[in-house]
């Protein structure tokens, strides 16, 4: 029991991240509404970010902020943080492009769900 709890405790946030990813992926693929798809995309991306932050975290570590001379501490790994900063910017750009496309599609076809769109595209 102890061992199981141990294993669970050391890995549960990975599991959670994966659940979140799956939720996002499901929305991306299965949802008909285009805005819902993008919400799914956001969840999917943040879940990946969560995964990065999780593995960067070190037991008993502290935030990688410069400490005065003489103080020793275990920093958490700062590199994934930097990576994720970049990835967040990329993610918001993708969302912005996607949303502007949805607005355009709505202006052209008057619908924002996939089934309706398919009908409209075929009709033209």
């Amino acid at each position: 029991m102890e061992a199981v709890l141990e294993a669970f405790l050391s890995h549960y946030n990975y599991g959670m991240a994966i659940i979140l990813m799956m939720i996002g992926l499901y929305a991306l693929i299965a949802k008909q509404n285009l805005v819902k798809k993008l919400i799914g995309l956001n969840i999917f991306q943040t879940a990946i970010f969560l995964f990065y932050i999780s593995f960067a975290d070190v037991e008993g570590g502290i935030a990688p902020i410069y400490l005065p001379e003489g103080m020793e501490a275990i920093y958490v790994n700062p590199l994934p943080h930097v990576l994720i900063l970049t990835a967040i910017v990329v993610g918001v750009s993708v969302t912005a492009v996607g949303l502007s496309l949805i607005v355009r599609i709505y202006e052209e076809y008057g619908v924002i769900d996939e089934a309706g769109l398919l009908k409209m595209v075929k009709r033209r």
Partner: protein
Amino acid sequence: MIEHLPVLLVTVPIVAALLILLLGWHDSRFCYPLTLATILFQFAGGIALLIEVMREGTIHYYLGGWAPPLGIEFVIDTFNGYILPIVLLLALATAVYARRSVEKEIKPEKIVSFYVLFQLLVTGLVGMTITGDIFNLYVFLEISSIAAYTLIASSRKPRAYVAALNYLVLGSIAGGFVLLGIGNLYVATGTLNMADLARLLPASYGLATVHTAFLLLVIGFSIKVALFPLHLWLPDAYTEAPSAVTVLISTVMAKVSVYAMFRVIFSVFTTAYFVETVPVTELILFIAAVAIVAGAVLAIAQEDLKRMLAYSSVSQVGYIVFALGVANQIALEGGLLHILGHAVMKGCLFMVAGVIIYRLGTSSFSDLKGVAATMPVTCAAFALAGASMIGVPPTIGFASKYYLVLGALEAGHWVYAAVLLAGSLLAVGYIWRFIEVAYFSASSHHEGGDHHPAPGVREAPLSMLVPMVILSILCLVLGIFVDPLMKIVAPAVSLLLGGA
């Protein structure tokens, strides 16, 4: 100067893009010459780097002087030294071709942003090609992808928005998978530098993390290169995009994605991993064979030239991935040759489709009867590039097919070699659709004399014709002078197979 060339290839265009934006605001006539000049510079740089690599060996450039693993490095070795000029050659050809095409297909107020995005797309792809850092690869991948989504949507056709959004959704999933895969690799090794990864990974080949990373990366890149069951975004995106954008993404972007896939599989994971540790070569071969056949069959079923060419790309990607599955020296030489060959011929074919849309306003087969009589040069270019697509000797398409079959037979894959050959026959099926319609269609038949041009339709403008004809002639020239070409390709393949 020359030692800073790698970084200049990326920074100069970004500065140029800003300049285009600023000057274009003032007067949109500045955009085109600036774009052309920048890409010309990049092309020259790419050639210079290739020569340098062939002469001196691998070039390492530490960004900002920070050596890896702390800093990001650009690495140009024989493999991407070979890819880079291909990318830039096609980008240059597209840039020349784009001017007239863009005037017609894109709203005037969007022309400035078109060139800015064009520049960013090319730069993103160049960055992907030369970076030695796997996370940097991801960033450049996303930059170029975002530029591509926007460029596709810049068409006047409303359907392009839908195509772009579809691409965006699938592209983002791919990006997410790649990002996740990179994360796994980092967990396993603690580094993001590709050379370091290759060095450190073998110790943890047994770990589930590494297997997961491999799977995620392969699936992510498979979406990006549109490997058969994951190709769904491609036909719409290629068909609906403005002609110049189609040329660019179908050649340069598709090829850089393939490059990234090869780079990660061979240079990060090494052959030892994916041939021995996780024996997936049979599976890859199977998928590639299915892609070759299914893509060609779907292409034959199309009623529109541009869409047909799009499905043909699905089929042709299969050839390149096929080389990956065989994974021996000769087959990979064929695969790398096909990266070049397919870029050149598909670029030419899409340019033809674009020219036809430019003049006729449509690319549906039923409207193209006898078009060869009015646009002889265009159709001749198609015929030559099409022959290369089919693999008629002595074109480049034949050479790559020859190497691929030779490699497959040498590895003992008899059945797959047969599929490859049959696939090239299917290519006849779709290329001939156009040839028959354009050259031998009844409506063009006139008693007692040569074909007469239909009124109003003329040969394409010179600035579109020249890059198109040059590419089609390249199909032949590269096919004839394939042996000197192999002097560049062979070391690249040795590098891939040797790991690191």
